């Protein structure tokens, strides 16, 4: 994992000397002269960034980059980008590019152009990954080296010229059939049909039962979503669907449905990542996602800690559970305490009046030796077993015990370890924001503890509405809309399910 040890700000006239030093060392014969650079940095139609070593104190200049966008012209250009040789491979170039992309979008550019040396595959790949395409080659553009230039273009809002796209999102990764509709950043409908009750007698989600329920729920859920949004399928500009991570058989129902709908209404399809969808949901409440942000996603299927520098370009998995998901631990401990499924709300109820300090249950992966390897990972299997053993011992001794104390102490252990690691991630990466997502966010103690600790550390805490925290189609639609507005090409019709899709794959092509 690379640690972020640089800082980016807008460049000023005062940075010119340092910029020229780097310019000359990077471009040699090709370098601009000082007058040109001066004009570029101070001009009104340009936006120049400078990257410096260090996070608190400003160290040496290690990179710079510039954008040009003339008012009234909807094309913008990446003028230049340079990173000092010693500082390459740390993501500084990407970070500079992401900032310029954001600015180009803010200025309503329709297209963004750049030129790159034909013999620089590392840079080409960076641009391709950001959504640029190679549209032309200028022969022998770079002299005296006699090297061709690739002309690359990024098209913003390719499929929704002149207005925000209306996107229908389909989510079937676990036990909720979610169909949501958004217009750009605006939520129009979010209908969820859950098969939770059918799983209750098994004490956990049964994949086959979930998949059967999705098939039954598709049509009524679609009808409700369209009715709520007051739209017909003719109004839909694109379809987004979850293709992972999640339960394979369940995901396939959504994929089959989404692909057929895409062919039927002749609209593009976007295959998107479920976990990144959870992060993107904040856009629907606030109109944008402030980045960077740390995101803690906790549900019956996932316990993941993400560092999101850019929703569609730069999501990093910091850690995740190495055994049970937190929600699963709630379900299992509920069974131990003879409470109903799902365990989260039942344990919340049982914990009322209990002493969270009555029993000190273990905090998984929190010992110093574990923190070295698993600083941001979670483990709830040992905790679950500890509770089961504690109850077993108490029962064997025939001693009456206070269920409220056990429930409160268990809940405290889960909330403590989740919040401690999430806050650590914010502090370590100097990210002043934490976003919560997933069904376990419904847990009262988790919210309370997150609020307390975030306040103490000056971290802004975002908890979306519960209907957007649990699995839903609106978050999938929202992520699809972001991809479209960033000019991303649609997915093909051949993508499949990936039950363990990594968070770095925001869209599957």
């Amino acid at each position, binding site marked *: 994992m690379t640690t972020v040890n640089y800082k980016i700000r807008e460049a000023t006239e005062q940075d010119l000397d340092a910029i020229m030093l780097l310019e000359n060392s990077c471009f040699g014969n090709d370098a601009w002269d000082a007058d040109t650079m001066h004009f570029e940095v101070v001009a009104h139609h340009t936006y120049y960034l400078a990257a410096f070593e260090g996070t608190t104190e400003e160290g040496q200049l290690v990179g710079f980059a510039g954008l040009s966008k003339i008012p009234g012209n909807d094309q913008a250009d990446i003028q230049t980008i340079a990173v000092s040789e010693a500082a390459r491979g740390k993501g500084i170039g990407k970070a500079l590019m992401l900032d310029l992309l954001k600015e180009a979008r803010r200025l309503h550019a329709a297209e963004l152009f750049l030129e790159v040396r034909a013999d620089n595959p590392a840079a080409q790949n960076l641009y391709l990954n950001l959504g640029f395409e190679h549209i032309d080659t200028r022969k022998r553009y770079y002299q005296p080296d006699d090297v061709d230039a690739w002309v690359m273009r990024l098209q913003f809002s390719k499929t929704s010229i002149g207005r925000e796209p209306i996107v229908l999102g389909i989510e079937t990764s676990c036990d909720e059939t979610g169909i949501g509709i958004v217009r750009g950043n605006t939520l129009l409908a979010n209908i969820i049909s859950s098969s939770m009750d059918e799983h209750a007698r098994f004490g956990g989600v*049964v994949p086959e039962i979930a998949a059967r329920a999705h098939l039954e729920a598709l049509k009524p859920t679609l009808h409700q979503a369209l009715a709520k949004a007051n739209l017909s*399928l003719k109004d839909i500009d694109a379809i987004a669907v979850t293709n992972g991570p999640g339960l394979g058989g369940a995901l396939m129902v959504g994929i089959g449905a989404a692909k057929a709908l895409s062919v*039927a209404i002749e609209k593009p399809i976007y295959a998107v990542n479920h976990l990144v969808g959870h992060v993107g949901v904040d856009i629907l409440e606030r109109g944008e996602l402030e980045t960077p942000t740390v995101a803690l996603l906790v549900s019956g299927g996932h316990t993941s800690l993400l560092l999101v520098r850019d929703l569609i370009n730069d999501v990093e998995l910091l850690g995740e559970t190495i055994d049970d998901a937190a929600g699963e631990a709630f379900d299992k401990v509920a069974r131990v305490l003879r409470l109903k499924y799902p365990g989260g709300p039942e344990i919340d109820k049982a914990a009322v009046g209990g002493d969270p300090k009555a029993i000190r249950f273990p905090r998984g992966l929190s010992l110093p030796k574990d923190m070295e390897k698993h600083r941001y990972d979670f483990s709830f299997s040992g905790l679950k077993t500890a509770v089961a053993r504690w109850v077993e011992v108490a029962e064997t001794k025939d001693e009456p015990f206070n269920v409220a104390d056990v429930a409160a102490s268990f809940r405290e252990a889960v909330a403590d370890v989740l919040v401690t690691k999430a806050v650590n991630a914010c502090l370590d990466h100097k990210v002043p924001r934490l976003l919560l997502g997933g069904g376990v966010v419904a847990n009262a103690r988790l919210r309370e503890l997150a609020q307390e600790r975030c306040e103490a550390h000056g971290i802004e805490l975002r908890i979306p509405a519960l209907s957007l925290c649990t699995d839903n189609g609106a978050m999938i639609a929202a992520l699809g809309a972001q991809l479209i507005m960033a000019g991303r090409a649609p997915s093909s019709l051949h993508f499949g399910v990936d039950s363990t899709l990594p968070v770095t794959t925001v869209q599957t092509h």
Partner: protein
Amino acid sequence: MPNYTLCIDTSAGTTVAVLQGGEIRSEIHFDENMKHAERIGDAIAQAVAAADIAPGRITNVVVGRGPAPFTGLRIGIAAAVMYAEGVGAKLWGVTSLDAIARAAFDAREAAGANGAADLPLLVTADARRSEVYWALYSGLSKSGAPIMIEGPGVAKPAALEELLADKKFDRTDIKINAADLGKVFEAQLLDGSASQNVTALYLREADAVAPKDLREFGKRVSG
């Protein structure tokens, strides 16, 4: 305006066809018994394109309801449901084994009627776990719809032999083709027996055992 019928079946491989008034306009087959999720979009898009019509021209969607292994079967039904919604077409369900029966009876007739012509026909399909889905047919209706006299069921091959031991019947190893599914539907429409029920014919319960004591962690029932 001619009526176009889109036929989808994912009970074995992924097979899609477009029919118009009893005539096959296009058919696309992917034989693998897996990868239905990957193939279904292309199969439908290609079948519609090969029929040389706009997707919105489809007026009926017919889907094979199985019986079949669950995961693949559902993908075809989900796709059919949504395609019908997308273009405002009517949605119909046909037992997948009927399509095989229809093809087998057609082949029998084409080969010229002989002694075998009167025998019932046993249609089987792989149900995995060393079992088969089966149904027994007496023949075709006047319009050409297969008449099922026993089944559909799921059984070990040995148990099925035992069950049918005192019966004489013919067998077939024809593979399912969505075009045959469409022919069955058109015949059923004439007979007035076409069904809008598209519920999957699973024939087996979901594989889950409710733990006797929910406090045991031994049985992993969560995903």
